[in-house]
């Protein structure tokens, strides 16, 4: 895990496929790449079998570009659609049993700290809404209460997409799905509030129809998790298959859902604000200068 792992081994360069050579020579490693430079550098993400037009795919693509140090990052995933793409990036990926991603990430991030000390090694969990709010719920909550320092990202398509349309805790009340034909009987879980109660230092909601915002929240969440505590991003990443959204309307749907139940929200703890301002120069979090006292004379 360093720039060394994306170099060629001596004598092997000419045998490497073009995509690999492009990635070593023009990939995101060791330099800062941004969303506005997309289309001009080789991305770490490669081809994968996720469905055409899937918003989750777009979100994963943007997230990987936003990682502040891709050469020092490990992603952790679990069963569900997202791992089909996350595993196809030139970034080490750990895949456990369904739902154990936050337990795995807790051990991993602690182990990396023991091994590498203060040198930042970022651990980022990306899992579906079923993996995060249902099957992995207990481990997710415990990692937050224990203030484990890594980022949890929920890829919320409001359904179990990979297995053909069962309802999840994050499905909306009343939603009718292929394998929930009577409609869901309970409200969508408020995982944002739970993240705050459990003490996460950063909690944000985001929709991929704003690529620069995705970039900005991922960067903040990963940086804060280096030292301050757990961070949580909940991203609406529609499933066009299970919700029958025509692929050329996926962004219109994202906009509608953003207005309806996924407005951008961001909670940053005071400690995290101070850390981002002092360590990484985030001007928006610098303490405000005391307001000038109006001169009454």
């Amino acid at each position, binding site marked *: 895990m360093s720039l060394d792992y994306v170099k060629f081994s001596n004598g092997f360069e000419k045998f490497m496929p073009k995509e690999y050579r492009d990635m070593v020579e023009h990939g995101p490693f060791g330099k800062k790449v941004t969303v*506005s430079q*997309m*289309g*001009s550098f080789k991305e770490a993400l*490669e081809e994968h079998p996720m469905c055409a037009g899937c*918003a989750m795919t777009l979100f994963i693509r943007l997230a990987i570009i936003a990682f502040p140090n891709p050469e020092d990052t490990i992603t952790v995933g679990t069963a569900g659609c997202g791992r089909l793409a996350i595993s196809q990036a030139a970034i080490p990926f750990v895949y456990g049993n369904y739902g154990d991603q936050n337990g795995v990430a807790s051990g991993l991030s602690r182990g990396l700290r023991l091994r590498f000390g203060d040198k930042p090694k970022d651990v980022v969990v990306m899992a579906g809404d079923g993996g995060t709010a249902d099957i992995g719920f207990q481990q997710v909550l415990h990692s937050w209460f224990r203030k484990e320092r890594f980022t949890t990202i929920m890829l919320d398509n409001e359904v179990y997409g990979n297995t053909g349309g069962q309802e999840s805790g994050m499905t909306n009340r009343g939603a009718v799905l292929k394998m929930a034909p009577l409609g869901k009987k309970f409200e969508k879980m408020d995982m944002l509030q739970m993240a705050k109660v459990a003490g996460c230092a950063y909690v944000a909601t985001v929709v991929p129809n704003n690529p620069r915002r995705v970039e900005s929240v991922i960067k903040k969440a990963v940086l804060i998790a280096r030292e301050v505590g757990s961070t949580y991003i909940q991203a609406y990443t529609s499933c066009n298959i299970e919700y029958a959204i025509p692929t*050329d309307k996926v962004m219109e749907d994202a906009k509608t859902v953003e207005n309806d139940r996924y407005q951008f929200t961001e909670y940053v703890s005071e400690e995290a604000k101070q850390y981002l301002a002092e360590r990484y120069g985030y001007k928006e979090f610098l303490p405000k200068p005391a307001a000038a006292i109006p001169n009454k004379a």
Partner: protein
Amino acid sequence: MYLVANVNVEICASKSCKLCTQYCPEANTIQYSEEMGKEQGFKYGSAYIAVDRCKGCALCVWVCDSLAKNNAIKMTMIDQLPKAALTDNITYGDKSTTAVLASPMVG
């Protein structure tokens, strides 16, 4: 046969906003070239599609029509494209890429 996205360089180069590539779900698929269109006298470069990676979702068509308001992308049957960019023929530079266009059917 199947549909892939096709960027009209003449229309794109008048705006060249690079929005489509920020919304394409597939990585390394909508590329940007500062050179493309320059030989035809356009001020800016153009977006283009690595058609071997395109999954045909048409999301980029919506982005160019509705966000960029430029209508530069149309879905086209792959065998109706005389020439297109393929991953093997794309070269990365410092700030841009270049592509040697070839028949997507023959390579």
